[in-house]
């Protein structure tokens, strides 16, 4: 096989499902049966995976650096919360559809304006958008409950799956199912020609302009898709926790998704999975052992990753696999 042929095969088959890709799902299902006492944390991990996945689409694939992604998470969460609190709309699936639509709208409008800029300007403007929404939610306290928060009521999913605040088994299955659906969407987007053009924009935006690709339109499109998925994550968060506060629109939440991608690796689809699991488990276990000093441990891990694994943990795996393959060939 010539190099050209090998490259052609690689391109033609790169979207195919590899056996290893089943691993996170098998683990997630196994965790449901093996660790019934950890399902509350597990559900939070699944939501964080979904949120980080949406960020990966814009950050990892399209190269849009944003610190304001919680704007969409929060919009989704408040969409579900406000429907439940003020319109007695407790149906979960339609609630999530509304959440996705609301977040997509915010993404479309803000993306249309903001994506003219890039780099630090874009970073600051995304953050400013989020802060504006945060302040809006704070001001409209009668609607949103403000700092004190808003209780959210949810009917059983499809009339079958009841959410028990004690066991979290219903919440876990619901979150897992949704994550799987959303993952299929993201995977589809990433491996489509549209996804390839995003990578092109990330790698060399001038060249993409030169070949006549509608750069800004593609960026706004992916930003909107990503916002919708973040909105689903936020809506899911509101439904599962049955309570939301201004915290859903906070910088901490936006930064957490970023940290997850740094830990797990960005632009790699599964980076969000590895990063979110590692982040939450570390945080949970460290905070239990050292309630006052857990942040030190987390910070240390971040420094080590930033120093020795710039591509995150999945990047580290990929490098190791590559080295192994080369040795096997030679």
């Amino acid at each position, binding site marked *: 096989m010539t190099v050209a042929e090998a490259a052609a095969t690689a391109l033609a088959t790169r979207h195919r499902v590899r056996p290893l890709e089943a691993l996170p799902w098998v683990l997630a299902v196994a965790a449901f049966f093996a660790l019934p*006492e*950890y399902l*509350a*944390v597990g559900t*939070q991990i699944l939501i964080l995976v979904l949120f980080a996945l949406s960020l990966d689409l814009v950050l990892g694939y399209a190269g849009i650096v944003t610190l304001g992604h919680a704007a969409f998470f929060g919009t989704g969460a408040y969409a579900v919360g406000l429907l439940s609190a003020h319109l007695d709309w407790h149906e979960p699936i339609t609630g999530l559809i509304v959440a996705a639509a609301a977040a997509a709208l915010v993404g479309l409008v803000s993306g249309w304006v903001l994506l003219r800029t890039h780099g630090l300007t874009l970073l600051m403007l995304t953050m400013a958008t989020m802060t504006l929404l945060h302040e809006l939610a*704070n001001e409209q*306290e009668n609607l949103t409950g*403000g*700092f*004190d*928060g808003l*209780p959210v009521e949810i009917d059983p999913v499809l009339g079958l799956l009841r959410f*028990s*605040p*004690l*066991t*979290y088994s219903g919440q876990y299955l619901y979150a897992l199912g949704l994550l799987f659906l959303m993952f299929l969407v993201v995977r589809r987007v990433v491996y489509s020609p549209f996804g390839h053009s995003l990578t092109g924009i990330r790698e060399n935006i001038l060249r993409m302009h030169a070949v006549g690709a509608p750069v800004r339109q593609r960026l706004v499109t992916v930003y909107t898709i990503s916002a919708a998925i973040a909105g689903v994550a936020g809506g899911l*968060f509101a439904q599962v*926790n*049955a*309570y*939301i*506060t201004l*915290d*859903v629109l*906070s910088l*901490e939440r936006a930064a957490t998704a970023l940290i997850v991608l740094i830990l797990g690796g960005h632009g790699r689809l599964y980076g969000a999975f590895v990063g979110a699991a590692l982040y939450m488990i570390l945080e*949970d276990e460290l*905070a*239990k052992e050292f*309630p*006052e000093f*857990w*942040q030190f441990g987390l910070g240390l891990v971040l420094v080590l990753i930033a120093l020795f694994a710039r591509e995150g943990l999945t990047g580290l795996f990929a490098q190791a696999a590559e080295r192994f393959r080369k040795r096997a060939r030679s």
Partner: protein
Amino acid sequence: MRISRLVAAAAVAAMFSAGAAYAKTVKVGIVLPYTGGGADFAKQIEKGMKLYLSQNKDKLGGHEVELVTRDSKRPGGDIAKVAVQELITREKVDILGGFVYSPNAMSVAPLVTEAKVPMVIMNAGTSFIPAMSPYYARVSFTMWQSGYHMGKYAAEKLGYKTAMAGFTNYPPGKDSAAAFKRGFEDAGGKVQELIPMGGPREVPDFTPFFQKVKDAKPNALYMFVPAGSHASAVVKTYNDLGMRGAGIALIGPGDITQDTKLQGMGDGAQGLVTVHHYSADYDTPENKAFVKAWKAAYGADSTPDFMGVQGYDGMAAIVDVINKLNGEIDADKAMDILKGWKFASPRGPIMIDPQTRDIVQNEYVHKVTKQGDRLMIEVVATIPQVKDPCKELKVGKCK
């Protein structure tokens, strides 16, 4: 003779075995913000709890208490909820306690109700929280207790006719300012304006706000800001603008003269009048013993503040429940004990109201004075056994 000795031996044996068989370890789950902006509060509450425990081992009736602590981190509700879910299902705690931030105490309500675990709230002061679960009891305060009575006292006893209120723009601030307005106007005064002055995260520049107040010339300015650096900035701006000279008195809830921060405010704090439920300077036998024990345990430089005493009293309630139920914690029986529970606290006599499960306590009018080179809180008046005015007057969400 022989028979009676036999009976005595049997009795001793029975007592011994009873003690051995029934010594239980009661697990108490504690949820506090050990990291982040609330870490100081968590420290105070934990020190208060541990002080009570170390002093009152004998009240446990041979049982043990194990504290299982969790960090609630931020006031977002979600982290506290996971922590409580896990404390209940995995650690199988018998009682819950702590809770500094109101949103965290609110978000766990359905969980606590479903799992039937009694919970003693040691800070979280939003008025309607105890109504959210039948297993909640609160030993801390509500913003209305200090705000409402500061308003009444300012109009009735200090003779102020007009006032303005400044507050940090988040629920405790809004509550406190609204309470002050109601109290002041119920007693015949007039509040000209309520002015939001920035958020809880960063200390704003108070100068433009205070200048506006100075121009309007009310008799008094009521200020609610979070304890700590906010309060120091308020006192500093008040003095820099010469507002005292302009005839405007600075008053507020005791949060702005918190014991642990008072000495750092400098001489400008002298003459401040506040209303609150605790200060370490109270001259009562209970408080003197408490402060002495605190300093013995945590060092002469350490001072309890209202958070510390809330932790102390909260643990007193928990220990009393364990004692009366002999280590077998049943949620409904525990709540029956907590309803109407009374305690001679360092802050004075306190009770948990049987109807609302909220705290009933004395509110004290504080005046900051100087003795030697130390700023002191002097109590100039006592308002006995104050129930939450928000619930008494049925304001807004309070029922």
